[in-house]
């Protein structure tokens, strides 16, 4: 069994087991007077363990176990706390701006985590299959080199074809000017680059002999730039979800602590 399938089955099994267990406990103990107190503290403990994974990441020189093991625990516990959160809410929508904000924070943190998990399991394989591995931070420099090479071909001092120059100005200058087609790449669509390559092929068919080689080189640069955009889009997606997940986690923890203070300050403890 492949690693991906094993993790998927284990994850599904853990989720089902946690759901069954939580629902059974809910059915059995939900009538207890301090049931909200019990689920609330369990939820806080779960959230605390989920949060300290980031602390583990900041201390790689300490023998705190493999990050891979921590991540697996983080994922399973993440699913479980989501379920616990619903139980804590008694499967009802929250009331009041504070609780609504708190609930939204929880939803966004959980949701971004699930998106991140999906991206982490799917996008690396797509990047490896596409090839042309490039470090994210180096993409602008490589893209600039491709743009310079394309400009040299179309507009440089040796460029003598007004047709190529016009095509470059109208169709390629924008394409080479910066990263393009983020969403198309994320959706695994090659529509935009294929259209450009097809137009270049049309141009080549009717071009003078001397210009054909230049057009082929331009097509090569378009493919290279498209590959860079693909890597940028997918690598950016693999990073961006963390910019939602981590800051909102800290916001959620602050709101959670305030929630506990409010519960104990104004309600005489959870009921």
């Amino acid at each position, binding site marked *: 069994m*492949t*690693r991906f399938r094993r993790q998927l089955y284990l994850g599904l099994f853990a989720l089902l087991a946690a759901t069954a267990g939580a629902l059974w406990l809910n059915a059995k103990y939900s009538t207890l007077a301090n049931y909200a107190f019990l689920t609330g503290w369990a939820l806080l403990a779960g959230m605390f363990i989920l949060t300290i994974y980031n602390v583990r*990441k*900041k*201390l*790689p*020189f*300490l*023998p*705190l*176990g*493999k*990050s*891979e093991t*921590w*991540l697996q625990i983080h994922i399973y516990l993440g699913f479980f706390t989501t379920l616990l959160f619903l139980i804590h809410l008694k499967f009802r929508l929250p009331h009041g701006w504070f609780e609504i904000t708190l609930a939204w924070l929880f939803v966004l943190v959980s949701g971004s985590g699930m998106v991140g998990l999906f*991206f*982490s399991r799917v*996008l*690396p*394989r797509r*990047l*490896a299959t596409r*090839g042309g*591995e490039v*470090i*994210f931070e180096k993409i602008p420099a490589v893209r600039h080199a491709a743009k310079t090479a394309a400009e040299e071909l179309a507009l440089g001092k040796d460029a003598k074809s007004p047709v190529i120059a016009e095509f470059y100005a109208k169709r390629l200058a924008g394409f080479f000017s910066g990263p393009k087609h983020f969403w198309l790449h994320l959706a695994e669509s090659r529509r935009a680059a294929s259209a450009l390559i097809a137009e270049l092929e049309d141009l080549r068919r009717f071009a003078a002999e001397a210009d054909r080689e230049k057009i082929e080189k331009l097509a090569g640069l378009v493919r290279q730039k498209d590959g860079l955009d693909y890597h940028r889009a997918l*690598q950016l997606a*693999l*990073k961006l979800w963390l910019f939602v997940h981590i800051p909102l986690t800290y916001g959620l923890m602050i709101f959670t602590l305030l929630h506990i203070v409010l519960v104990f300050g104004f309600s005489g403890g959870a009921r």
Partner: protein
Amino acid sequence: MPDAPTILERPQRWDVAFDTNMTDEDVNRLLFTAPFSQMDVEKFPKRTPLREIIRNDMRILKFRKGEIIMRQGDYGTSAFLILQGAARVVLKPDLSPSLLGRQATGKKGVFRTLAQLWNRSRAPEVLPRSILGQSSGVSARQDENATRVFLQDVPRILDQHRTAEMTAGEFFGEIAALSRMARTSTIFVDSDDAELLEIRWQGLRDLMKSDDALRTHINKIYRERALASYLRATPLFKNLSKEQLDRVAEAVEFATFGDYDWSGEYKRLAQSGSVRPEKEPVIVGQGDYPNGIVLLRAGFARVSQKFGGGERTLNYIGAGQIFGLNEIAHNWRNEDATVNMQFSLRAIGYTHLLIVPTRVMEEIVLPSLPKSELPPPVEKAADDLDFSPPETATREKVGAEILEFLTENRFFNGTATMVIDLDRCTRCDDCVRACASTHDNNPRFLRHGPTAGRLMIANACMHCADPVCMIGCPTGAIHRESFAGQVVINPATCIGCKSCFTNCPYDAIRMVEARDERGEFLVDQEMKPIAKATKCDLCVENHGGPSCERACPHGALTRMNLNNLDALSKWLKL
């Protein structure tokens, strides 16, 4: 019009002499010095006469008292002959690492580990005084040609260690030079002045070819010092009595193949894209009569099979592995249906090997093995194209593309190669950040490197089985850790000569400009920045193993001995 080819004079064996300062006078003097005076010049081929070997493959070195000639554990490419003066070889106990200019490493304590939280430098490549001022018991002095390391307190060393004197006319270092293995002893000069003749391995090899006495002498000491213990440790000979083992040792033949300086040659070939199995020296050819089993003592060899117009790699084997046993065992049991060698064995880089002749195998070794330990019979001759030999199992395990990739790039040399599975790697750089956190904010590798399919070999020190980076370090700063064998650099004794940086075929070593604790560049008297070599040390001082591997959230990065393809195949399937 096509570009005109670049025409060069064909490179020759002695285009670059070992020492361009060797004069006719020096050569004449050496020709009248033993053992060269006893050699028969007529026996040397016209292409490599004795006089030219002396002129091009030797150099005369002057040493002063206390200067270290060779260190235990170093990798050297040459042997030495004492011309004048005396030297001492340290027998027991070995000199401490600090006396050899090495870093006395150990695991960090709890406080030092935790202190990494607040002690990290803001500037890159800071070398604190505590490291630079490390008391080592050795100092370096610079003469016009080289940097020499000398022991500061020779009388104390003589008091505390058992040593043996070596005087004019004695040879040493020849076994390590020829077999490309670590030096087994430390030797230093014990007279006010000493004159030594350094002979690089190519010269030594040519001398041995033409001079029976030297060949007999070196073979004798090889058999005495290294062979018996090696054979005893080889499982194939475990059932032999001492007498039988002596007979095997007596019959063993030694051979070296390939280019000793393979790293430089390999870099050149790799850049020109002309690394091809067909160009590698053949140790055993497919279809040859099996003359004996081949035991690899050092280096690597490629097992290949004719396929179409070329050769396809089936496997590669490294030190301690055996080739040819299947065919010899088959022929011994099936005298009426003998087979020739089923595959070729080719040297990759430099290979030092032992050959146990078929006769000795049949008379002594094979009868000592229980039936269960004998290899299965060879099923079919190799000229059957449909035949899939057992060796292809290795190829199938990791896939042909990956096997060729690892072989072409010589990655099997790595004992702790950083392997990244691109199917799992989310490019999060947690590994790089972990490395930087563990090394005072300085990452010691690049998360980038050659790729084949889903496999990437990152630019990180692989802690090679054959560490060419260690050859030629003048101060012993780059060395193997005594316990786990990681290749590490002592920044205190690194003089920034770039020898390791140039030698490393994998671009895993970087030169950096060191800074002090204020973040200012360290400079010498001429105000030039002081450079140091840096690389991955496999987190030798940290608990829990390499932090890069532990930091990967997706198990996409591992440090692996690539001479074990089973482990790689298992990891890829995980």
